[in-house]
């Protein structure tokens, strides 16, 4: 028995798990339609590889991944693609997403499956296999699993069977009934990660799951660790803390500290994908609350949620339904959506289970929230800052370390939905950052426009100077007595040189103007430094060009005509001055850039 560590705070809400765990995992018939959304991972939506009208086999790829965080999507059964387009999605925004509609043909006929010989496969092969199989984290975060197998060797693999949220019991039932499959997944993951030890954390309210996992782990070095029931011990960071004592700070990856955490459902899916070549086509879903047949169902991805609830005997079809748990779940905006890979639990609300929250009262700073916060934040202060839109202060007090577990909202005697305030503050901060980025882009565009205008101006000046000089030279060669004749044209050459000098001065001024205020902005660090460097380079180029043009003009104004020497000399002096000024502009710009870089690095 290994030592357990505690984490700060936490709550003990009523469990409500018994209703659904009274039954074994229930199979379901296929629904008349499947709505398979293409956004099934935290990354980009997958790109469809099938077309409307096409016949597909079970397990056939419907959409391919698009980018690193994306995951492929497959046909949960054989049938016909009847539509590809926007469809309601299980997301609080209620915004539709691209969805493939599949009409099952009832045959459920598989495409040829290709298991992976994982013991001989390279880690890269395993990762790409999992990505192709659409395996994502089934704990709710739907983070692509292949990315979590990238760090090896690893000290500890933490297996998450805590399932701390009330009502949810899909992991519990999976562990009770399919422990061997989970252990297969652990074996593969531990092999890929070269994990030094494997710790399986299960809350002590699941004795049957603990017994089943212990039996399945017999003869393996994997250790089943019983942990006290306390919400949110199933949060990855909390579970890692409980089992290893390691605290993973916000913004740090657990793997950097030698730990990785995988959910039991994910490991089971991984085992199916590797050992049987089955893509992620279905998952266990707890359907509970105000339904006649509360149980855990094995449900095809894309199954319409309304249909699923009907199968479970929902009492009130108008009832609000939560997807996820009562602490962190979302109220579904539209039950026409298909089951997403993230859908671990559906709870039909009833007034008895979910009495309406009393009206919000003033915060009395009682500090109950702080005493239950697993991130050890001061939620009442964050609430105060969020409410007064003092977002800087909220960030300073580590708003982004908040894992939105809702423990603070749960205990608040003033009945304040605290997490809503934190989400609001976070989204406002993100929006402000987006705006800032856009503004800096606009500034860059503006700076380039200024540069272009000035470049055109100086080019024009140079052309004029060249023409004038040509004329002067012509006149100089034509005239028998050049001294008198060349005075005027050389003077015009001088004018042009002056113009070039002015252009250089303008460039310098522009460089100064753009570089200075930027250097004073510490906030958007590198971007500004980069921008300042770009502008400095542009100013340098403009100045160099202006100087070269001026010099050229002066040279042109001074071709082998000794008598014209005096006026041409002035022209050359101007050119020199322009060159000096350009050099100065360059130096200023460089200094500004250096300053900006320094500020950014601070």
């Amino acid at each position, binding site marked *: 028995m290994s030592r357990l560590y505690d984490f700060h705070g936490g709550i003990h809400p009523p469990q409500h798990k018994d209703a659904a765990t009274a039954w074994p995992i229930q199979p379901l018939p296929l629904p008349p339609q499947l709505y398979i959304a293409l956004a099934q991972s935290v990354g980009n939506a997958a790109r469809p590889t099938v077309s409307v009208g096409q016949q597909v086999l079970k397990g056939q790829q419907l959409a391919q991944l698009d980018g690193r965080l994306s995951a492929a999507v497959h046909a949960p059964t054989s049938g016909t693609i009847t539509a590809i387009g926007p469809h309601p999605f299980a997301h609080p925004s209620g915004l539709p997403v691209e969805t493939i509609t599949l009409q099952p043909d009832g045959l459920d006929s598989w495409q040829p499956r290709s298991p992976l010989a994982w013991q001989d496969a390279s880690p890269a092969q395993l990762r790409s296999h999992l990505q192709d199989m659409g395996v994502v984290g089934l704990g709710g975060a739907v983070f692509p699993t292949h990315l979590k197998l990238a760090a090896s060797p690893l000290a500890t693999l933490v297996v998450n069977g805590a399932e701390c949220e009330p009502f949810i019991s899909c992991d519990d039932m999976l562990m009770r009934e399919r422990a061997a499959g989970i252990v297969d997944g652990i074996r593969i993951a531990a092999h890929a990660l070269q994990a030094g030890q494997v710790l399986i954390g299960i809350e002590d309210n699941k004795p049957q799951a603990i017994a089943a996992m212990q039996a399945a782990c017999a003869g393996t070095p994997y250790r089943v660790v019983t942990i006290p029931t306390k919400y949110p011990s199933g949060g990855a960071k909390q579970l890692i803390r409980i089992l290893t004592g390691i605290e993973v700070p*916000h913004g740090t990856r657990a793997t950097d500290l030698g730990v990785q955490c995988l959910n039991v459902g994910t490991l089971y899916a991984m085992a199916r994908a590797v050992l049987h070549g089955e893509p992620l086509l279905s998952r266990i879903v707890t359907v509970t609350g105000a339904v006649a047949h509360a149980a855990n169902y094995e449900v095809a991805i894309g199954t319409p949620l309304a249909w699923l609830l009907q199968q479970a005997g929902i009492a009130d079809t108008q009832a609000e339904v939560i997807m996820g748990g009562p*602490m962190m779940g979302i109220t579904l905006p539209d039950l026409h959506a298909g089951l997403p890979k993230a859908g671990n639990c559906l709870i039909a609300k009833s007034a008895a289970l979910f009495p309406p929250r009393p009206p919000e009262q*003033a915060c*009395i700073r009682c500090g109950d929230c702080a005493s239950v916060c697993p991130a050890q*934040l001061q939620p*009442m202060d964050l609430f105060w800052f969020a409410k007064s839109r003092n977002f800087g202060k909220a960030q300073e007090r580590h708003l982004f370390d908040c894992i939105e577990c809702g423990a603070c909202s*749960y*205990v608040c005697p003033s009945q304040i939905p605290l997490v809503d305030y934190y989400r609001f503050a976070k989204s406002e901060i993100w929006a402000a950052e987006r705006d800032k980025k856009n503004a800096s882009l606009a500034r860059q565009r503006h700076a380039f426009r200024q540069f272009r205008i000035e470049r055109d101006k100086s080019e024009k000046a140079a052309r004029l100077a060249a023409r004038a000089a040509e004329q002067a030279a012509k006149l100089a060669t034509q005239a028998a007595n050049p001294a008198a004749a060349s005075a005027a044209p050389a003077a015009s050459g001088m004018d042009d040189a002056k113009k070039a000098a002015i252009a250089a001065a303008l460039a310098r001024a522009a460089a100064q103007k753009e570089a200075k205020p930027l250097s004073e902005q510490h906030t958007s660090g590198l971007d500004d430094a980069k921008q300042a460097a770009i502008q400095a380079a542009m100013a340098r180029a403009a100045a160099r060009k202006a100087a070269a043009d001026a010099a050229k003009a002066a040279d042109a104004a001074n071709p082998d005509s000794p008598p014209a020497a005096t006026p041409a000399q002035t022209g050359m002096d101007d050119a020199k001055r322009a060159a000096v000024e350009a050099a100065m502009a360059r130096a200023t710009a460089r200094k500004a850039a250096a300053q900006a870089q320094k500020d950014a690095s601070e």
Partner: protein
Amino acid sequence: MSRHATHIAQPVTVSRVMLKVLAALLPGIAVSVYCFGPGVLVQLLLATFTALGAEAAVLRLRQRPIAPALADLSAVVTAWLLALSMPPLGAWWMIVLATLFAIVLGKQLYGGLGNNPFNPAMVGFAVMIVSFPAQMAAWGTPLAALDATAQLQWIFTHTLPAGSSVDAISSATPLDVLKTGLLQGGQAVSQLLQQPRFGQWGNAGGEWVALAWALGGLWLWQQKLIPWRTPLAMLAGVLAVSLPLWLWQPAQYASPLFHLLNGATLLAAGFIVTDPVSGSTTPLGRLIFGFLVGVLVVVIRVFGGFPDAVAFAVLIMNMAVPFIDHTTQPRVFGRKGGRHA
């Protein structure tokens, strides 16, 4: 309603919290009534109605919903704490005025519940003791033979039935007597404490009231409505100053026990420094806040111009709360060190 809110919550409300605080005051109130007569109840009633009336009036002016604010019972808690700090036989207008200051100036003008930087009851008390020191010092004589009608008559008309003397109903508090005695010089603390006013443990009758406050405070702690840190730190602060002084010159300085059982020390420990709104909220901050209140209580009692000092000590430390909280931020999960590390 947000689609992403936490869907369940403990069935707790501010009203229930406040109701429990009021319940915790009941033992102390019972002992007070036994010692000082029904005048205590009159003070409580006057304060309660004034507080509710004042709160409703200001909310109306501020165009805020009135019923929920009154129902949270926070005004009643303020009223009771104030009434229990005031002389039991003080004239009616004193408690009314004090409550008005507490609710209007101390609470509502800052924005109502949750926004007041100072403990409203202590604001009301401080205003009164600064403005009417003589009247505030006149406490009822414990266990005085004065019946209920006579007490009522005194509170509302400032007259007494024939045959009763003013001495029977008003005497200085033990803290006051001791202070005056020591200022006059010539007598040691132990000699002064021979007077019947001090009883066995330095506060005839009052010590039982004080112990009843402590009982209420313990119950609140058991109910998890107040933290242990602030009250214990406050008592430690009282000891930290009074004990060395007493050991050094017992003739000149009263014992720690005297300081604990006199004035509002134990009432403050259970019910006043534990006011969450105006107190510190960080674990370390609560220790600092409570400790310094305790230190200030004894320092002001012994070296200051007023006999009791809880109100001033609490108000001074209320001012320091933002700074204390800012500098004692606890360590965030996964981060090193406290503060803003």
